[in-house]
């Protein structure tokens, strides 16, 4: 049952554009929602599975977007001390890979930090990190164009030498690209969560002293989680840059982190499907609200819905629904399925 639900959702998402026809507005909303949902899934790895509330997650997303854009646009920057960095444009796919690596590297730094400072301090350090990165993007005009934005970012090109290449210019192509990357991320996280590494994360979250006492290395586990989480957010950022084809320092806005946090918390932190369900609801809520109210009012509804969900379903929609239907949340179900018969 718990395995059928994600599959059914995937099938629905694959078929959705066929049902919608060529509605560019809806497709655009779906693509952006999909990208943010990937961000939310990556955030969930930290927030849900290790219990570290990173409110600077957008930094990894933005770093991914900028690294990918700059890799594919090229740059020529004076570094001071007579040094100059010149880079010729590379294909967007390389940018995607570099974005993942660069964001992962930043995740490594934050992960190391998270062991030193916890709780409210960690929250504020991560916010600060994101703000510093945003201000660098805003002020290092020679590299990033600052508020003028990086424009003409090339669209994704997929293919293999000898087989031919496709440039993903249409919305429909981008939709399926995002869906593919999102599915891949989901599968990776599912693998990870059900592995020994996933158990170490859960152990640390539930009872840290006990986890240490059974030989779990906290620093290493949290760092690896942060690296993977950041790398995924960076990948999402890269998708964003090559889809919109223009980015400015506003990709680092705190509000976007908040959106991702809402998606995770509303959907159900620490569950696999939570961020997907939360992502779809909160990503598409503006679409539903747009005909009836102004954008500012939409945000008010956003805030209200967040508070109501925290009040009514404090653990999130997915675990709440699962409990209501008398089932266990998706997280532990596969473990149960595979456990051996009780030896008598």
């Amino acid at each position: 049952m718990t395995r059928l639900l994600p599959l059914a959702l995937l099938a629905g998402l694959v078929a959705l554009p066929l049902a919608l026809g060529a509605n560019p507005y809806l497709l655009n909303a779906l693509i952006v929602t999909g990208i943010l949902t990937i961000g939310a899934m990556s955030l969930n790895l930290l927030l849900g599975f290790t219990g570290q509330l990173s409110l600077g997650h957008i930094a990894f997303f933005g770093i991914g977007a900028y690294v990918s854009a700059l890799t594919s646009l090229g740059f020529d920057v004076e570094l001071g001390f007579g040094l100059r960095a010149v880079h010729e444009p590379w294909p967007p796919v390389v940018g995607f890979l570099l974005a993942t690596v660069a964001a992962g590297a930043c995740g490594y730094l934050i992960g190391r930090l998270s062991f030193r400072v916890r709780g409210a301090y960690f929250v504020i350090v991560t916010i600060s990190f994101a703000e510093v990165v945003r201000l660098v993007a805003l002020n290092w005009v020679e590299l990033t164009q600052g508020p003028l934005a990086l424009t003409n970012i090339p669209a994704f090109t997929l293919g293999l030498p000898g087989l031919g290449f496709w440039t993903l210019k249409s919305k429909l192509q981008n939709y399926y690209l995002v869906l593919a990357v999102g599915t891949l991320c989901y599968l990776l996280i599912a693998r990870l969560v059900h592995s020994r590494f996933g158990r170490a994360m859960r152990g640390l979250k539930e009872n840290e002293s006990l986890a240490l006492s059974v030989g779990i290395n906290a620093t290493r586990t949290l760092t690896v989680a942060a690296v993977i989480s950041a790398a995924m957010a960076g990948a999402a950022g890269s998708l964003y840059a090559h889809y919109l084809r223009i980015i400015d320092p506003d990709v680092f806005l705190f509000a976007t982190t908040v959106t991702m946090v809402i998606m995770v918390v509303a959907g159900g932190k620490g569950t696999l499907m939570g961020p997907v369900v939360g992502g779809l609801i909160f990503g598409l809520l503006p679409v539903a609200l747009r005909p009836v109210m102004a954008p500012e009012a939409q945000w008010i509804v956003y805030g209200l819905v967040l508070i109501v969900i925290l009040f009514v379903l404090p653990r999130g929609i997915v675990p709440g629904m699962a409990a209501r239907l008398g089932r266990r949340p998706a997280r532990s179900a596969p473990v149960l399925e595979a456990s051996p018969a009780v030896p008598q």
Partner: protein
Amino acid sequence: MSAILSVDHVGVRFGGLVAIADLHFDVREGEIVSLIGPNGAGKTTAFNVMTGFLKPSQGEVRFRGTSLKGLAPHAITRLGLARTFQRTSVFPDDTVFDNVMIGLHQVGGRLGRAPVLDALLGRAGAGERQLRARAAALLDWVGLSGRMHEKAGALAYGEQRLVGVALALATEPAMLLLDEPVSGMNASETRVFVRLIRQVRERGITILLVEHDMPMVMEVSDRIVVLNYGRLIAEGPPDRIRNDPAVIEAYLGQGSSARQAAKSAHGSAREPVHA
């Protein structure tokens, strides 16, 4: 037999407060040793030092000849020294079975060389099956098979202690430190637990125990180490400790509950409660 654990002139101070002053004793391989003393004597602090949760202000602990100085808790566990906790002994939101799976962290590490990569590439299949079999066997051994699919946090207190022991055993230790394992257990549960401790020892695992249940301590220990106000005041086999004037003084000097404990320690000499 040689010493497996040496506490070598260890002292712990919190600011001006002396929690442990110059503690010095050995535990030999295969022994069951109890660390007793009135409340606040420094027993749990001593455990925290031995397992790397606290850094001693002076002295050091050696385990199988290796100094534990500066080692993190997880690194000490990897050397084969495991512990249980006084209060929170489980991962509350996971099932009992998953608790033990988390506890098998190290064993899992031995089965796969690059665990994160294995997990991402889905290479962990065979190793996982082995781990599950092991977890089931461990639960069977401590007598929790029937509870395996229940949430650990929802178990009765005594059962949670057993989960804690299973978690410690899952690390395949050479020595086990048990912090008040039978507190919250009724008489029959305690009896079962004593049997379990003996079985653990038969498997070649040395045991150091902190416990307030004097009859149980007197019955199960080969040797007893007594602390008071952070100092070692007596050391020896149960019979000698039971009649040691310094020990009696330490317990009588305390409140009535401690006096009770001392009394029952004497009582157990006449009528062995746990067979």
